[in-house]
């Protein structure tokens, strides 16, 4: 335990911590980020609660599961710049863009930051002190802090490599801030969905303020939405998009797997997602015959590898592989029901 109250994963006793050590990157380099969150531009001068005037709050309609944490998000673009949306499914953010995400459960625990620099994206995270008076930069190798109020009794701060593993699985690393996630046609059935607070930016706000340019003009009148046969399916596909699609898509390093769970709002009638789910799984569900496991078996949730992996928190089998230690009970229940009701012979 060091002076800040953080322990390196090596000093914790659990075997999962051992894996954290073994999976962490070798010697961390000095971070270019400030040591204090207050110095990153998120807050108005002299406060740790009031966002600065040029910081925009937002909330995606299909949020990432974070073990039940309450989250808040902000983005800041350099003055006079804009987001280039000519590739409507992979926006290009100007150098200088900053994105923050805060995690709390009663009190604030962590605020993550990603910054677009001339040499690429830089990631870091800040740990809030117990009295909430400061938030300090966590080492790039990540850390574990005892936290009786958090599931599992400790709080895991991700390493920079953990950040990259999720954020750099597509052409743009900014997740949750996209045409579909900020669409005004919000999904009322979205799993853990939240209504945006007044003042939060949405797709139309960004276009009107010319902070977003190049978007298809038709999306102003017909905001993007997931085309699905039922409301349940729409919500499930949205959940898979927001929780799995950042890695499992057709434009990133894992494209060779042929598992595409990313919704491209320009192709709302595409059934490739369900099709890619019907393929054979390289993951073998316990009890299945060798090479017979399926990613998804219509009508048979118990024979669907994606659900099995979402229901486990064995680090070697769980999905997502990082940033969660608690099963998302609501999501898995709804996905189980969706799979159960899928007719054999899918896709529709």
């Amino acid at each position, binding site marked *: 335990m060091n002076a800040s109250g953080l322990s390196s994963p090596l000093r914790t006793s659990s*075997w999962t911590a*051992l894996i954290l050590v073994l999976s962490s990157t070798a010697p961390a380099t000095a971070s270019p980020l400030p040591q204090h969150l207050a110095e990153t531009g998120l807050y108005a001068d002299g406060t740790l609660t009031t966002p600065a005037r040029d910081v925009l709050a937002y909330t995606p309609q299909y949020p990432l599961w974070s073990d039940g944490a309450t989250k808040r998000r902000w983005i800041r673009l350099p003055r006079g710049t804009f987001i280039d949306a000519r590739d409507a499914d992979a926006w290009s953010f100007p150098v200088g863009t900053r994105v923050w995400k805060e995690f709390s459960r009663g009190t604030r625990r962590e605020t993550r930051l990603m910054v677009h620099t001339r040499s690429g994206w830089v990631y870091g995270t800040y740990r809030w002190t117990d009295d909430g008076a400061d938030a300090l930069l966590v080492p790039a190798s990540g850390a574990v802090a005892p936290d009786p109020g958090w599931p599992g009794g400790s709080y895991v701060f991700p390493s920079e490599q953990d950040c990259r593993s999720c954020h750099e699985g597509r052409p743009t690393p900014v997740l949750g801030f996209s045409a579909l996630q900020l669409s005004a046609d919000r999904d009322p059935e979205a799993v853990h969905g939240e209504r945006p607070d007044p003042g939060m930016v949405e797709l139309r706000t960004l276009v009107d303020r010319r902070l977003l340019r190049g978007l298809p003009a038709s999306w102003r009148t017909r905001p993007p939405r997931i085309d699905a046969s039922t409301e349940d399916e729409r919500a499930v596909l949205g959940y898979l998009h927001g929780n799995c699609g950042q890695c499992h898509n057709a434009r990133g390093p894992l494209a060779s797997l042929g598992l595409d769970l990313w919704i491209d709002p320009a192709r709302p009638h595409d059934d490739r997602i369900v099709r890619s789910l019907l393929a054979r799984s390289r993951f*073998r569900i316990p009890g299945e015959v*060798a090479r017979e496991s399926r990613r998804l078996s219509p009508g048979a949730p118990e024979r669907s590898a994606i659900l099995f992996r979402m229901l486990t928190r064995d*680090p*070697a089998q769980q999905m997502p592989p990082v940033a969660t230690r608690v*099963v998302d009970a609501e999501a898995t229940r709804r996905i189980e029901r969706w799979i159960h009701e899928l007719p054999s012979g899918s896709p529709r």
Partner: protein
Amino acid sequence: MTRRSMCILVPLFLACPVLAATPPVPPFAPSLPNLSPEARRGEHLVAIGGCHDCHTPKTFGPQGPVPDMTRMLSGHPEGIQVSGAPTVPGWIVFVNDSLTAHAGPWGTSFSANLTPDTETGLGGWTEQNFIEAMRTGRHMGRGRPILPPMPWIVVAQHSDAELKAIWAYLRRVPPIRNEVPAPRPPSGAATPAATTR
């Protein structure tokens, strides 16, 4: 020359022909034919890196386990069942008699099939997936942790050119269909569906 120095030099002189006549070390593995210079370099790196130690199944000879090169780099054989590891005070790592399954505080891990078989090996991987996996210690660079005893931190010290050479070689290894079991959690760890809260 003193008598004392003669005592030293003569035995050395006599030893030289013996040292010079020492036969060259035989190759660890049969060399694959028709490899590109890059893949040939990769073959050498795989051999001296000890990859066969865990990723090639063994047969038992009179002096112990010997790599079975007919199943070169195909990982833990799918037909070999491994029971739970014993608990012995003072010991933390156990290895099976094929040297392809290891048990320790992380659970039980099975050596991966590194051949280019599409369904059970690295056939679906790209060069980028391989390099990122070796650099990050995560499956395909962003999936589950690569488990002990895989010394990925050591492999990560290779240059990009060296990792590309290893990948070029692995693409040329004969594909072998062998479905390696999924790793097992340690006994007493949370089981699937047991951690909702």
